[in-house]
């Protein structure tokens, strides 16, 4: 593209490169914004459904799918308040630092085969590094607010994120050892083919590493049940207590952006990247640009699915205590991830000699498919039934007339 600009349009090569970079940045920003809008709507609907409510229904016709846009407009016109005690510079700087951390991660995130802003050799490493600096914005915001609630939130965030970075990085190493590269595009291309080629099914350790990574990712995105930094029952609203309007919005964009970035890494490392999972070849190689479009859509849907899982978890599980959060990391996730790392190294060494191990992915994939099938059947069967019999002591829905009111035992 740079060549196209410089040769056809006669731009200076340096200027052309800058222009290309600018275009890529705009696309990515737009994507982040749009996905954030979608996520907010999704979150409201998901939480409502999980809580037996309807959620937004009116704005934008059906399903209230313009509700987020309305909210955003409202936030944009709200008064921007900076507290007197706040450190103005840090207070202003905080959201941008957070957003920058989140956004910079997208630079190395491949959406499809070659659809990437900067194809880096150390893309995974880079993304983790950049996303870990997102916390700095939170800390700055928390400290700069001049409020103790915000300070507490920032401190918790700092402790939590720095701690969770360790098991997250180690569990990322597990598929990297299998892949032998840190280039995300290469990793995704290695998983071409049916879904049993995905790294999550590669061996038991990568399977475990997926869950570990996803848990740590949830925690580093400060999503529930690890959202201690904004625990409203304890800290009003945590680090963004004093924020309002646009700056608050930016924090949320950063959060949803990093949610998608984490989901994207998980998809690329474990879930086959942009591959559909049943085609034996790389789609873009066969049908060109259309294949690329399909790949990008597949990738985005996969990412959204994982984001949906995060929301699902958020509205299902209660929040942990701060000491439980730290204990979960240091006492469970860290040893587990270390064991996984050790195990996958040994597995890789052994699978050179014991060829049976190479076929472990079929077994794992089959088991998972069977489990999902069984679970789906169970879910469909249980659907629509008011589970009164699951609540001992509850009255039956409609006691027969004249029958004695006897509680079920």
């Amino acid at each position: 593209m740079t060549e196209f600009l410089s040769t056809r349009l006669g731009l200076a090569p340096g200027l052309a490169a800058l222009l290309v970079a600018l275009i890529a940045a705009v696309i990515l920003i737009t994507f982040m914004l749009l996905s954030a809008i979608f996520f907010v709507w999704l979150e409201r609907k998901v939480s409502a459904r999980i809580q037996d409510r309807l959620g937004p229904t009116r704005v934008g016709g059906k399903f209230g799918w313009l509700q987020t846009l309305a909210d955003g407009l409202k936030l944009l016109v709200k008064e921007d308040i900076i507290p007197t005690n706040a450190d103005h510079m840090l207070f202003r700087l905080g959201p941008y630092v957070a957003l920058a951390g989140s956004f910079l991660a997208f630079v190395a995130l491949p959406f499809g085969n070659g659809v990437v802003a900067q194809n880096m050799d150390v893309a995974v490493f880079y993304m983790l590094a950049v996303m870990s600096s997102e916390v700095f914005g939170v800390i700055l915001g928390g400290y700069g607010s001049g409020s103790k609630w915000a300070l507490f939130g920032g401190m918790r965030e700092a402790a939590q994120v720095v701690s969770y970075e360790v098991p997250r990085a180690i569990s990322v190493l597990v598929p990297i050892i299998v892949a032998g590269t840190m280039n995300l595009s290469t990793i995704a291309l290695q998983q071409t083919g049916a879904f049993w080629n995905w790294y999550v099914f590669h061996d038991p350790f990568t399977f475990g590493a997926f869950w570990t990574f996803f848990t740590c990712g949830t925690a580093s995105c400060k999503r529930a049940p690890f959202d201690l930094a904004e625990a409203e029952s304890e800290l009003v609203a945590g680090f963004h207590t004093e924020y309002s309007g646009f700056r608050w919005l930016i924090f949320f964009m950063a959060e949803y952006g990093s949610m998608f970035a984490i989901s994207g890494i998980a998809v690329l490392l474990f879930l086959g990247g942009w591959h559909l999972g049943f085609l034996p070849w790389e789609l873009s190689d066969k049908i060109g640009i259309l294949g690329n479009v399909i790949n990008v859509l597949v990738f985005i849907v996969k990412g959204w699915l994982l984001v949906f899982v995060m929301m699902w978890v958020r509205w299902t599980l209660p929040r942990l205590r701060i000491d439980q959060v730290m204990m979960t990391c240091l006492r469970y996730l860290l040893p587990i991830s270390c064991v996984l790392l050790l195990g996958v190294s040994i597995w890789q060494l052994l699978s050179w000699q014991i060829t049976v191990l190479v076929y472990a992915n079929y077994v794992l994939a089959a088991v998972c498919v069977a489990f999902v099938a069984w679970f789906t059947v169970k879910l469909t069967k249980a659907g629509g039934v008011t589970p009164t019999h699951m609540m001992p002591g509850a009255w039956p829905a409609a006691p027969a007339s004249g029958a004695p009111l006897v509680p079920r035992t």
Partner: protein
Amino acid sequence: MSQATILFLIIAAFTGLSAVAVLVSQNIVRSAVWLLFTLAGTSGVFFLLGADFVAATQLLIYVGGILVLVVFGVMLTAQGPFITMKVGAAEWVIASVVGLLLLGVLVMSMPGPEAFGSSEAAPANAQVSSSTQLGETFLGLPGAMPEANVSGLPKTATAVPRTRVSYLLPFEIVSVHLLVVLIGAAYLARAKRRKGGLP
């Protein structure tokens, strides 16, 4: 003005000014923020120099780790009055003079373009070492190991037989060192009851 030059100028200015801001900033948290920008800029410089891995490491460890720790330390200890920690104007003057002297010395002692022969231009991209090569060097794989030339002898000197060096052992030493240091730090910073009880 190529793209690399522009980028270099932007990033170098950003980094250098941030470093100066670290120095002159009176608020320690602001210093930390400027330090963050300095470090991030340094990482950008590394990217510019083609050292992706070092740059990412710089980001991960410095920005994500050390700096958070620093801010953490600031917040843990930021209760005392900062006013008393001001330094006098005389010190500023002395320090500036000394700093300028030092800068002058450092600039004067630069090797200059003729030091390494034809090095006025950066080598081609092909010669930039990839992170894989770096990893293989750390692992001590025979093909990837560089020739031992840490002394940087000029080419005019008589050729000395060069053996290849491996960084596996130093790497292990450094990792053990890091572990020891972390344990030591945890021990040093563990919660201790202050003598005489709390005020």
